[in-house]
């Protein structure tokens, strides 16, 4: 049976990161974009913890805790912006929100 090494976890994290980035770029629904951002942040967490495990150093786990805390704040503010956007234009599609594109 094949041993699971750090590389396997890194490949998993890489795949999740790529899926998240494609979701951010391809979707037009703001709530799906926010979910894709959560995917990207989680893929980073796998990297932190996999290297923490490989190096026997707890710093990676500490940083993963900080990532989770910042992700919670990001989700709260993002959903607040979503609510404000919905109030302004009765939709959560990002297509119409181009006022700041110059």
């Amino acid at each position: 049976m094949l041993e699971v090494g750090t590389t396997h976890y890194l490949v998993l994290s890489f795949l999740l990161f790529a899926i998240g980035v494609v979701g951010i770029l391809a979707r037009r629904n703001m709530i799906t974009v926010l979910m894709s951002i959560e995917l990207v942040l989680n893929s980073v967490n796998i990297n932190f913890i996999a290297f923490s495990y490989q190096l026997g150093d707890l710093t990676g786990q500490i940083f993963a805790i900080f990532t989770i805390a910042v992700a919670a704040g990001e989700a709260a503010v993002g959903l607040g912006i979503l609510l404000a956007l919905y109030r302004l234009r009765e939709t959560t599609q990002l297509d119409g929100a181009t006022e700041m594109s110059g």
Partner: protein
Amino acid sequence: MAVFALFAFLAVASAMVVVTHRNPVYSVMSLVVTLISLAVMFVLLGAPFLAALQVLVYTGAILVLFLFVIMLLNIEREAPGGGHKLQKLGAALAALVFAGLLATWFVAAQGAVEPVPLDAEAVALVPLARHLFSTYLLPFEIVGVLLLAAVIAATALARRGGTSVGEDEA
């Protein structure tokens, strides 16, 4: 290996559903599957505390918040088609770039280091707490202030300008 393979497959498959499904409720539900699979990964990597945090904070708080907003706004299914051609092109390009990176990395990563397991006392909560509250005390406090700022910002954004919250029925 079997546990890793099962949950890695689950995580990637449900992540695909998250970004491809047109109904946001199904997206949130499959994001729950992804995050719980990742919690299993954290247990496998000797970080049971982070697995607990993942389940409590992510699936317990953040995703409930997402679901709450979806239900509140009654977000409908995304209409098929439409969208910018440039956007689709950019996404396809990003997917290609990542596939290429992954392929080159597979070639480069031959002879990767096998993991050295943390010993039992390093996995325990006490060393983690000692790190968090001594070496990383300042970042910890800053994160506390950041969360406070996020709460205030979210409240200010979500509340209708000028009127009190109780007046709107939405």
